[in-house]
């Protein structure tokens, strides 16, 4: 079955992390001399797939074939020996060393027991010129060059190390401007012409279409499909990424229609021209009591940034924010909690759970932070709260005293949700509340959101799954490229939402 054209064939790759099925049964193949984009939302499994190919992680099941031969990639070093090189998102070079040193470090030409500087510099310069067609002074410090050049140097280093046949670029363009990106693409095309196979990971769909031959779409750790870039429209691609088939009709649930009646005229949150330079373009937002506002947008469109601005993680530098009619002056999470705002953050591990603390402590944390140091909840109150939410949200834990790190991802997510419900918020911002949790729990959370709305609370619901946003929200705000594009209310046509997200007519 193995075609001579394929340099890499990964078959039935499965990988589980504690609490998360990162990849299940994923196939991926890479042709000689092609540029192959891997796309998908956060948590889709892009980076896990790459990590398995580069030996950072080991697959639980599945085989990897290089040139038709089954291999076990033992380590990143081994991957390099096999001709697989990676350039990561953050450039990991040494800015205070010269360009030549960065490219040649660890493999410097030697003479008389020391480094043969002249030969090294000549080689580095020659290499950059030959392979990447860039001509720069390689004896200068790396830091003196713009990010784009640094990126090239990183690629040159990756190529030099192993005379790589397979090059993996993980979000290489995220810190480049348009011209620099064009320059990078030139290099990529040149390498492609030389027969190097390139895996290109990005969340900029424009770039995917500009440069790639084929596109692999992952969603929630499963393979949606691999497509020829010329065969799939942008809209179809987005539909595949966010899990919505175009023909499928939207079924508005009965609860939602019912809960629409409860929306009141009083605006709980009003943002006018709220924005932060370089983070989020100024936007207007209004949220009424009893309303669920959905935010739709692709990864990097600004959906998390809006949540951070509303909750005071970051201070806006333009516009005003009013909460229950009063202008907000202090932007901090603590001040927000005091105003009755809660944020269930997107990144559970980094910004959500506190590993070493127990389920009980994790649940009471935000409430206690609001009460301050000295009005400590009694042990009895703590257990009552913890037990109530363990029951309400069906948190699977042997006891309230279990360390939260021993819980599965879905249950950790529920613990964080419990932490915020315990503060009895008026405005609940949920950023990807259902990521990495099973279908049953997803439905529970969606139902919970609607029942909170019925109680007169408002909710901002952010999700990369359009399905979910449609099912739970009364109104939907669409973001693209860190700016608000439009808003939909009433009967929403998902086709139009996706068009707005994609930013082009199809």
């Amino acid at each position, binding site marked *: 079955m193995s075609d001579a054209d394929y340099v890499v064939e990964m078959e039935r790759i499965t990988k589980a992390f504690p609490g998360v099925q990162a990849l299940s049964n994923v196939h991926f193949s890479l042709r000689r001399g092609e540029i192959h984009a891997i796309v998908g939302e956060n948590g889709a499994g892009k980076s896990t797939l790459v990590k398995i190919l580069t030996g950072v992680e080991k697959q639980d099941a599945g085989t990897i074939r290089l040139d038709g031969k089954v291999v076990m990639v033992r380590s990143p070093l081994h991957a390099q020996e096999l001709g697989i090189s990676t350039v990561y998102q953050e450039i990991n070079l040494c800015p205070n060393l010269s360009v030549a040193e960065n490219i040649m470090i660890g493999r410097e030409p030697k003479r008389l027991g020391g480094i043969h500087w002249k030969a090294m510099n000549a080689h580095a310069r020659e290499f950059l010129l030959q392979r990447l067609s860039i001509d720069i002074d390689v004896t200068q410090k790396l830091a003196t060059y713009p990010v784009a050049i640094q990126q090239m140097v990183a690629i040159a280093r990756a190529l030099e190390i192993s005379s790589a046949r397979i090059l993996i670029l993980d979000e290489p363009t995220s810190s480049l401007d348009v011209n620099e990106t064009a320059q990078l693409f030139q290099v990529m095309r040149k390498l492609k012409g030389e027969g190097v196979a390139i895996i290109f990971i990005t969340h900029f769909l424009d770039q995917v279409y500009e440069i790639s031959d084929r596109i692999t779409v992952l969603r929630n750790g499963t393979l949606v499909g691999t497509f020829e870039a010329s065969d799939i429209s942008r809209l179809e691609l987005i539909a595949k990424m966010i899990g919505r088939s175009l023909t499928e009709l939207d079924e508005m649930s009965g609860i939602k229609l019912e809960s629409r009646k409860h929306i009141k005229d009083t605006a709980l949150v009003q943002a006018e021209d709220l924005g932060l330079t370089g983070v989020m373009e100024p936007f207007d937002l209004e949220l009424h009591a009893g309303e669920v506002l959905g935010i739709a947008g692709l990864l990097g469109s600004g959906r998390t940034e809006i949540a951070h601005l509303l909750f005071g993680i970051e201070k806006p530098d333009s516009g005003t924010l009013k909460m229950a009619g009063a202008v907000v002056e202090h932007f901090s999470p603590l001040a927000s909690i005091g105003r009755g705002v809660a944020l269930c953050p997107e990144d559970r591990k980094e910004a959500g759970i506190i590993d070493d*603390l127990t389920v009980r402590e994790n649940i009471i944390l935000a409430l206690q932070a609001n009460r301050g140091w000295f009005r400590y909840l009694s042990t009895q109150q703590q257990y009552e709260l913890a037990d109530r939410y363990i029951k309400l949200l069906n948190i699977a834990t042997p006891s309230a005293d279990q360390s939260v790190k021993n819980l599965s991802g879905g249950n950790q997510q529920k613990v964080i949700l419990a932490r915020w419900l315990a503060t009895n918020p008026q405005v609940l911002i949920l950023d990807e509340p259902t990521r990495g949790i099973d279908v049953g729990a997803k439905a529970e959370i969606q139902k919970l959101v609607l029942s909170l709305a019925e109680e007169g609370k408002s909710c901002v619901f952010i999700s990369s799954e359009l399905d979910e946003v449609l099912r739970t929200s009364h109104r939907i705000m669409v973001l693209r490229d860190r700016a608000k594009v439009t808003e939909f209310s009433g009967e929403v046509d998902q086709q139009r939402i996706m068009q707005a997200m994609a930013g082009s007519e199809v």
Partner: protein
Amino acid sequence: MSKSKFSFNFRKITESRLFFPLVALGLILLFDLIAVPGFFRISTREGNLYGNLIDIARNASTVSLLAIGMTLVIATGGVDLSVGAIMAISASVAAILMNPYVLATELPPHIMKFMSDPNFTYQPLWIVILATLIVATICGLWNGLLVAYGKIQCMVATLILMIAGRGIAQLITNGVRIQIFYEPYAFIGQGWIIILPFSLYLVAIVFVLAWLLTRRTAIGMFIESVGTNARSSFFSGIDEKRVKLLAYTFCGFCAGIAGLVASSNIKTSDAFNLGVAKELDAILAVVIGGTMMSGGRFSLLASIVGAWVIQAITTSMYAVGVPAFALQAIKAVVVILVVLLYSEQVRNFVQKISARKEA
């Protein structure tokens, strides 16, 4: 079946923070039981208890006091290298308040006769103690401001006072090594109340104070929360800066008390030698007590047991006749053993081996 039940219980016991430090202490005392006849003998003199065990606890009191404050700092993910220097500053402040005349070049004879009078003090003892503790607390506050609000790395921030502190201590006494004659002051480190040394009561009081402060309020949980995951804590509305400021300030306060005890022990304020390298002993005590250097969960009691472990090693080595100059090397070996014991890699390795044996 019965075996798995046993291992389950065993696991529960080993998970307790006190387990490892107590095992370490037990091993050292077991060594003494075998190697040193009469090590555990305790005698009474004038109604007070004397013996090696009492000595261990008494000599460990300085490090115990430091370890209590250090535990909170380390639990936030930091470290305080300046506690030894703060001890020296405290000793200087106390000494100069009791006898400021040492700074004068020439003294009239009616004052000269007070100089070595065991009943003479310039300021009353309570003012001496209060002022000393205030100065030490300000030192801790300074560290806390640098770390929490100045965002300086804790190592660097506290290194400043570690180095400058001894200079400050000398400035206070004008470079003079002051002998302390005032008898009531000596009671702090050398007195006895109801069969036990007074310094043990001090440790107990500070321990209870710290315990109430951290476990009867939300502060302990916030410290552990910030030390485990500062970003998540920030998202939950916890003010990381204030938590850190409190930890360093309290650590300074503890170092102040330790400074009083240490200077009262040797009846001298010695800016050069008082509390030298004590910060390392304090850190070691906390580490033996099972608090991770990266921050997170902490146990005050385990840190005090850690201080006893260190002192027990010293006392035991002297008891079997190890010369003083070899002591550091032996201590180092013990430190390596302890650190290995706590290392996750080593634990995983041991688990792997035992799993292989079972299979």
